[in-house]
């Protein structure tokens, strides 16, 4: 622990980057995910196919391979940018698929009768989704969405292998410098992650308890 307290600026740098990646990717990825989920249940076949292919491919590709693409392949094709931006791109692409799946399972959790009822009073697809299904889906969608954000927080660690300085990089660097304190350094960094993930997890538990009774 000593090692971490002596290097607080370094810790803040890693923590800041982890939080930045998590925040930015959530802000960009969530709208994409919602859009993808909407496309997957839409009446237009082409939209359904595109959304399905996007989510299936993204979910079955290892995140490391996506990073490989943004860090090593894109520069070869002439797209040269900052590694942080590359990390944001990779994480956004990857995470948007999981956001989409979380939203879709939320849409599926709204009882069928709700959609049937709104259809039978003459609402169209847009109205059914926007006025009836999505507002109800929201409550069952929020816990899984937060779970995806928790996973995203941990996934930012992969950026370490591609030249972005995140919390995990702090652990690696400090354990190299303070070889005798490696154990404490790793436990300290693990707790730093828990500092982010545990409150979010508590929020999920709270929301699930609060909302599960109502249906």
């Amino acid at each position, binding site marked *: 622990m000593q090692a971490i307290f002596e290097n607080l600026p370094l810790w803040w740098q890693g923590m800041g980057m982890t939080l930045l990646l998590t925040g930015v990717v959530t802000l960009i990825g969530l709208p994409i995910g919602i859009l993808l989920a909407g496309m997957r*249940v*839409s*009446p*237009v*076949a*082409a*939209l*359904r196919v*595109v959304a399905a292919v996007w989510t*299936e491919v993204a*979910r*079955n*590709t*290892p*995140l*490391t*391979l996506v990073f*490989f693409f943004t860090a*090593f*392949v894109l520069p*070869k*094709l002439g797209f040269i940018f900052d590694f942080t931006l590359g990390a944001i791109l990779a994480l956004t692409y*990857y995470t948007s698929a*999981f956001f989409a*799946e*979380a939203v*879709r*399972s939320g849409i*599926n959790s709204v009882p*069928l009768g709700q*959609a*049937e009822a709104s*259809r039978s009073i003459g609402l*169209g*697809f847009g109205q*059914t989704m926007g006025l009836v*299904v999505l507002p109800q889906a929201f409550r069952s969608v929020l816990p*899984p969405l937060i*779970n*995806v954000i*928790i*996973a*995203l927080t*941990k*996934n930012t*660690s*992969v950026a*370490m*292998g591609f030249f972005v300085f995140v919390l*995990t990089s702090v*652990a*690696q660097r400090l*354990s190299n410098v303070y070889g005798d304190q490696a154990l404490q350094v*790793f436990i300290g960094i*693990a707790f730093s*992650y*828990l500092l982010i*993930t545990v409150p979010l*997890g508590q929020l*999920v538990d709270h929301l699930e308890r609060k909302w599960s009774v109502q249906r």
Partner: protein
Amino acid sequence: MSGSVLFDAPGPNAIRRSRILSIVFAIATVVLLALAAYQLWLGGAFYQDRWDIFGQPEVWFAARGLMAGLGTTLSIAGIAAVGAIILGVLFSILRNAYSRWVRIPTTIVLEFFRGMPVLLMMLFILIVFASGSYWSVVWALIVYNGAIIGEALRAGMKSLPKGQRESGLAIGLTPLRTTLEIELPQAFRIMLPIILAQLIVLLKDTSLGYIVGSPEILRIGRQLVEFYDRQGGPYALSMFFVLLAIYLALNLSLSAIVRWAHKRVSRPRRGGPNIDGTKTEAIPLSTQAMRQQAGRDPMADTTRYPGAGMDGGGG
């Protein structure tokens, strides 16, 4: 909810509109893909010399070729999968232990394992235990996924009707035997799709070995790219496509198995004939729990279980 309830069975106008939209969209997609392909072509992706190395046997079959890398990836995944299931069973038993002195520490340890990135755990094992990169990946995957599978099994046991445990105890089984012989087998059956989905995540997570330096397929691919790049001609793009194809083939076929398992699990088992000879559909007592699982897409559902279903040290 099936899509069809959300909109009318399309009439002639709607069909025409939908078709036009579909075509417009398909054209837009094709144009986008073509633009991307053109960009790739400008970058030289389709020149013969970007792909020629894949015709050479040594790229695939040399001691540090792609097949050796695939072998490492699969062997890490195989060992870790077996280990994670064993550890998961152990965790789920400990978490259900009668004694609070066992239960509470286990809960805390499990939370701790699930809350940190699996990559951090790999580095930890690599540096603190000096175990070598291969075994650090294996052990980290065992511990991390064991914690998640343990949680899934516990959730499965919790979803069983209370009578299962009570009747086990009532016929004189010890609490441990009740868990082992009555609750766990049913929990395993209910949670099979979730566990299999997690094993796919485990397979994807072996690619993190790239970062800690275990010779799995991604690392090998990168080394090959660097080796051949020195002789001119950047192979990064073609290597990416080859690796992508390999991973997709592996994971998509495993996903298909998961969906099949899910369908099998959610089908009620048939019972034998009654004493009077009439046929019956025996409904297992765990059917209630299974029906809750039925009708959901297990792959979509993984996000419902904290920790399950995501990759890259994720959960």
